[in-house]
């Protein structure tokens, strides 16, 4: 029964957090190092998983308590009836196009110069019906292009750049570290989709399952507080963030040096979820509309 209140010093509450080892979760590592979690009485273990959906079984069976995920996949999970709820936010909409960690890239010398040019062409996204897919669709709509004229191709992000260069696809959605790699290789960026389409507030967050939250409310609060503290610290110490990324991802320092670091935020609004869920529903991606209010704590 790890429901001990955080105030009880000495015996710390052990929790396990499932993450995907990308830049988004740097505050978590940083916070652990800075002792923000220990201060809240949490003994934290971080484990890598393939994605938000892969973490759900582990939350359900109690092996892990929190997981990091973007809004879209977690909304999908919620729509299928799993009672998942966000505890705290992750990263925010980037402040500028230049700071956007995402990019739609094309081949050098491609005739496609902007989103309008994508009509009738193919775009690689890492997961159909996932966040990138939605971002590209919304960006296209915003640019006045009918998304149904674009052929979306599912392709792992690590293969996106090569596929564009070879001409297998005309464009690809990339996120860091692949964005900076592509830019360094000279691929033209025709859009920064997250910056252009994301709602204000957090676009991702740490979530848990409701039965757990009902029983361990104080632990969840402590976790949220520690994340908030970490976010704040991280936003002000980008060098330390980069050092953390090098440590936990194994990327070399030079790559990380060039990466665009997202802005971290702990504030996650139900309205963002409502907006996203609405878009997904419109596209026919959801079997049921999840209760947005219930998805945020």
């Amino acid at each position: 029964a790890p429901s001990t209140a955080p105030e009880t010093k000495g015996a710390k509450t052990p929790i396990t957090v499932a993450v995907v080892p990308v830049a988004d979760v740097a505050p978590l590592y940083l916070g652990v190092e800075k002792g923000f979690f220990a201060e809240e009485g949490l003994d934290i273990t971080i484990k890598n998983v393939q994605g938000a959906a892969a973490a759900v079984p582990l939350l359900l069976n109690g092996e892990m308590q929190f997981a990091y995920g973007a809004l879209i996949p977690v909304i999908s999970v919620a729509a299928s009836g799993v009672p998942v709820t966000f505890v705290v936010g992750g990263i925010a909409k980037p402040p500028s196009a230049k700071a956007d960690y995402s990019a739609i890239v094309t081949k050098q010398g491609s005739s496609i110069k902007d989103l309008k040019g994508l009509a009738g062409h193919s775009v690689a996204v890492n997961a159909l019906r996932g966040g990138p897919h939605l971002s590209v669709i919304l960006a296209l709509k915003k640019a006045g292009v009918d998304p149904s004229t674009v052929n979306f191709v599912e392709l792992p992000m690590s293969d996106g750049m090569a596929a564009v260069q070879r001409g297998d696809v005309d464009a690809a959605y990339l996120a860091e570290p692949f964005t900076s790699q592509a830019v360094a290789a000279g691929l033209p960026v025709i859009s920064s989709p997250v910056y252009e389409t994301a709602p204000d507030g957090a676009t991702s967050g740490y979530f848990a399952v409701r039965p757990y939250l009902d029983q361990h409310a104080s632990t969840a609060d402590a976790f949220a507080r520690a994340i908030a503290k970490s976010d704040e610290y991280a936003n002000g110490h980008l060098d330390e963030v980069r050092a953390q990324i090098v440590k936990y991802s194994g990327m070399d320092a030079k790559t990380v040096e060039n990466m665009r670091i997202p802005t971290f935020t702990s504030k996650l609004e139900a309205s963002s979820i409502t907006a996203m869920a609405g878009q997904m529903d419109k596209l026919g991606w959801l079997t049921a509309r999840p209760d947005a209010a219930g998805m945020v704590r």
Partner: protein
Amino acid sequence: MSGRATASVRIRARAPRTSPASARAVWVGAVAVVAVLVLWELLGRLGGGGARIPVPTAIGAALAGLVIDPGFWAATGQTLLSAALGLVLAALAGVVAGTAYGTFVFLRHSTSALIELLRPIPPVALLPVGLLLFGTSLQMKLALIVYTAFWPVFIQTAYGLRDIDGTLVDMARIHRVRRGRRLLGIVLPSIGPYIAVGLRLSVIGALIASIVSELIGGAPGLGYALGLAQSTGQTARMYALVVVIGVLGLLADRSFGLMERISPGWSPANRERGRS
């Protein structure tokens, strides 16, 4: 009769086969491997930007980085341990179930449709269920490994049972040889070549399942490292890990190949006749 009396009967001393031949095998194999590597390096360097597969020298550099990392060795140990454990379980289960399936007609008829329905379920698809039931524990890995490694042994065993010489079975029946003894003395040796192939498939299956379960399920091991390298765009490191996995598979495969060569000295491939 003078011809025969001449003492100069030249006996062509044929050296004992095993050791120099296997030395030759290593030698020939090594040459072939080097040839492939050189070809790859050349193609990679001449092919230019399009191909995203790193050349052997780049992978070699990443490999050098790996082997000095103690975490890598721990991961290797974890991967191998679970693969070996799962393989043993799967092999036993596969031989037992395959023998029963090939032997009992009612059992075969009752279960064949169900088995055919279940068999094609990709192990990857079962992962969420495995994660839910067992978490990222060793059990989850083992469940997936056993499931993957079981089928080849099972199928091969079941097929092998059709290849038992009827005369041997008659001989055993005549002498009222007990079933257990028949199993050990006749059935298993007869289907040995089938099981051997099944095992060689399973050993790699077990290794791959171990890695895939780490890759997707997040259990610690080489697969975890592989997934990390892949999702963070460290291509050379990823291929270095692939090379490591390939070498592990090669070693496992070779050790089985060796077993095969040692045990059935009776197999036609090892007999003297017909090898001239």
